[in-house]
C-alpha cells in the first residue's frame, strides 16, 4: 500500500505532473469561483476550444516568418489572441443580432475550433500538432517549458485576483454599486476574461481542451457548497483543485488510465461527495431538515384534539383522532412540547397557555368554515370533514372575512360556541 503511494513519487514525470498540475489547479480553482458566480462557465469551454486555432496560427506564423519549430511563446500568444477574438465575436454578435448569448457562444467556439482543426490538417506538413494530445491533454508528458509557462501565469493571475479582490467581489456581486463608486466595471470584466484565458491556455496542455472547463468550475462549485464567504470559497476551491490533481494522478497510475480523465473523474467524485454531505447546502442536510419539519396540519390536529377533549389527554386518544403514523406523531408531540405548545405528563398531554391560544384560533377557523359551508348549502354530513381541511386556511384576513360575511355568528351549525 505504502509502496503504491511512494513508488510513483520517485519518477520524474510523475513529479512534474504533480507540480505542474497543482499549479494550474490552484489558479483555475481561484479564478473559477468568479466564473461560477458570474455564470460564465460556458465561456471557459468556448475559450479552450478556440485555442486550437490560435495554437495552429501561432505555430504557422512563427515557422513561416522566423523558422521556429513549435515555438511555445508564439503558440501561447496565438491562443490568447484566439481566445480574446472569440470573446469579442461572441459579445459583438449577441449585441447586434437577435441571437442570444448562449447560442452565440455555441456558434463561435465550435466555428473557431473547426477552423483550428481544419488548419492543423491542411498544414500538417508544416506544423506538427498532435490533435489527440491537444484534445485529451498530456499531463504525464509535461515539458519544462509548460511548467514555467504555468508558473508564470499562476503568479500573474493570482496576484491580480488577490490585489483586486474587493474590486472583483463588488463588481460581481453588485455591478451597479461598483460603477456608482467609480470602479471600472467593464475594464474589470476584460481583466477577468483575460485571466480566464491565461488559465485555460496553461491548463489545456495538461488536461486537454474538453476537460479544462471542469478544472475551472468543478472545484469552485464544490467549494461553493461549503462556504458563505468569497475569500474562503477561493481558498477551498484552490485546495480542491490540488486534491483533484493529486488524487487523479495516483488513480491514473494505479489504473493505468489517461491522466486528464483520471483527474477530472476524481474531481467530479469529490464534488458528488461534497454535494451529498456538505453540512449546510448538501443533499443529506437538506433531507434531514425536511424530515425534522413537522407538518403544520398535524400540529393543528393535535391542538384541536386536546382542546375538544378538555384537559389532559392520553396519547391513545390523540392517536385515535389524529391520523398520522405513530413515529411522526411522536415527533410532532415532542416538537410541540419543545415549542411550548404542550405540557407532557404521565397521564398524557395538556395545552399550555400558548397552546390554548393557538388551538382556539384553529377551532374558531373550523367552526366559522363550518358555518360558511352550511350557508352555501353543503350537506350536513360533510360539514365536519370539509371544514377539517379548510380550517388550515386562515392566513391574513380570511377568517375575519368569513366572520363578517356571516354576520358574526355566535354558534356554529352544530350549536357549539365559536371562540
Amino acid at each position: 500500500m505504502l509502496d503504491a503511494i511512494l513508488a510513483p513519487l520517485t519518477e520524474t514525470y510523475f513529479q512534474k505532473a504533480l507540480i505542474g498540475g497543482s499549479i494550474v489547479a490552484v489558479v483555475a480553482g481561484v479564478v473559477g469561483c468568479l466564473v461560477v458566480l458570474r455564470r460564465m462557465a460556458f465561456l471557459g469551454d468556448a475559450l479552450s476550444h478556440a485555442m486550437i486555432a490560435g495554437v495552429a496560427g501561432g505555430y504557422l506564423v512563427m515557422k513561416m516568418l522566423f523558422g521556429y519549430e513549435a515555438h511555445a511563446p508564439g503558440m501561447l500568444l496565438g491562443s490568447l489572441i484566439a481566445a480574446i477574438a472569440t470573446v469579442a465575436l461572441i459579445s459583438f454578435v449577441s449585441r447586434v443580432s437577435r441571437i442570444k448569448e448562449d447560442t452565440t457562444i455555441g456558434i463561435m467556439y465550435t466555428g473557431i475550433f473547426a477552423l483550428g482543426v481544419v488548419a492543423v490538417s491542411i498544414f500538417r506538413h508544416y506544423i506538427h500538432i498532435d490533435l489527440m494530445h491537444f484534445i485529451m491533454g498530456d499531463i504525464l508528458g509535461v515539458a519544462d517549458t509548460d511548467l514555467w509557462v504555468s508558473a508564470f501565469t499562476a503568479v500573474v493571475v493570482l496576484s491580480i485576483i488577490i490585489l483586486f479582490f474587493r474590486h472583483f467581489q463588488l463588481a460581481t456581486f453588485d455591478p451597479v454599486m461598483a460603477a456608482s463608486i467609480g470602479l471600472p466595471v467593464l475594464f474589470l470584466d476584460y481583466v477577468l476574461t483575460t485571466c480566464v484565458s491565461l488559465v485555460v491556455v496553461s491548463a489545456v496542455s495538461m488536461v486537454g481542451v474538453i476537460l479544462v472547463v471542469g478544472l475551472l468550475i468543478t472545484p469552485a462549485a464544490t467549494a461553493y457548497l461549503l462556504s458563505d464567504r468569497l475569500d474562503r470559497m477561493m481558498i477551498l476551491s484552490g485546495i480542491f483543485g490540488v486534491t483533484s490533481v493529486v488524487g487523479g494522478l495516483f488513480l491514473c497510475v494505479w489504473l493505468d488510465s489517461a491522466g486528464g480523465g483520471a483527474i477530472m473523474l476524481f474531481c467530479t467524485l469529490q464534488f458528488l461527495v461534497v454535494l451529498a454531505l456538505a453540512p449546510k447546502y448538501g443533499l443529506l442536510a437538506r433531507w434531514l431538515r425536511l424530515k425534522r419539519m413537522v407538518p403544520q396540519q398535524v400540529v393543528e390536529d393535535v391542538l384541536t384534539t386536546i382542546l375538544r377533549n378538555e384537559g389532559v389527554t392520553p396519547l391513545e386518544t390523540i392517536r385515535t383522532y389524529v391520523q398520522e403514523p405513530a413515529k411522526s406523531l411522536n415527533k410532532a408531540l415532542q416538537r410541540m412540547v419543545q415549542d411550548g405548545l404542550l405540557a407532557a405528563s404521565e397521564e398524557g398531554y395538556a395545552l399550555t397557555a400558548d397552546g390554548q391560544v393557538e388551538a382556539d384560533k384553529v377551532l374558531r377557523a373550523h367552526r366559522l368554515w363550518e358555518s360558511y359551508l352550511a350557508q352555501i348549502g353543503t350537506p350536513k354530513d360533510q360539514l365536519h370533514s370539509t371544514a377539517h381541511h379548510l380550517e388550515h386556511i386562515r392566513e391574513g384576513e380570511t377568517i375575519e372575512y368569513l366572520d363578517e360575511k356571516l354576520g358574526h355568528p355566535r354558534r356554529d351549525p352544530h350549536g357549539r360556541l365559536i371562540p
Partner: protein
Amino acid sequence: MTTDHPTAANHKKRANAIDVEHLTVSYHARAALLDVSVSIEPDQLVGVIGPNGAGKSTFIKAILGFVKPDIGSVLINGRNVQRVKGQVAYVPQRGSVDWDFPITVQEVALMGRYQKIPWYTSPRKRDRQAAVEALEMVRMADFADRQIGELSGGQQQRVFLARALAQGSEILLLDEPFAGVDAATERAILDVLGRAKEVGKTLVVVHHDLATAGEYFDKLLLIKQRLYAYGPPEAVLEEELLSKVYEGRLRIFSDLTKRGEG
C-alpha cells in the same frame, strides 16, 4: 441675486441635495426624460412615482451618473454628478441581488467602505467599525455572520440600507424597497428610513404603490418622461394630474386623492 456676494451661495450651510436642470436623456429618437428640472432639498424622504416605462429607471441612472445627458445636468450637493463618484449610495432592488452569493451581512455592510479603502491595503479597523455601526443602526448587528440568503425580506433590505449608511453619503437612492414584502416588513423598512432621515440623510425612493405613497413620503415626484409634479403628497396625488399621467390605468383616483388630503 446680483447683490449677493458670489461666494455667499457656497458658504450656505447646505445646498440642495440634488439639482436636476433641464435634463433630457434619449435612447435613439425616443426621449426617456424630457426637460426635467427639479431641486430636492436635503433631509427629505422623497418618493419617485410614475407608471411603468415612464423613465423612473433612467432617472435613477441619471442621479447615479450612468447616463450621458443630451442636454442639461445633474448636480449632487452642488457638484456635477459626472465629477463626483459615490456621493449617492444605491440600494438595489431585491430581485436584482444574487441571494446565494457567498457573502455575509458584515461583508455587505463593509462594501459601503470600499471606496475609501486604498486598493493596496485590506479593510482597516475604522472601516470595520463603520460597518458594525451601520449594522447597529438598522438593528442587524446580531446577524453579522449570517449569509445574506438566510435573512427575511425586510432584514435583507436593512442590510443593504446599512451598506448605504456605511458609505457615508448624504443621499440614499432606493430602488423599490417595498416591492414584494409584507405589510409588517414594509413598516419596519419605513421605520429605518425614518431613522436615516433623522441623522440628516436625503432619501430618494422609487415607489410603485400609489395607495401608500401619500402616507410614506414627505414629498412626491411624479414623472412620465417629463416632470409632472414635485411637492407634498396632497398636491401631487391630485385626481386630474394622476388621470393625465396614468391615462385611466387606475380607477381608484378618488380614493387615493382623498387619502392624500386626509
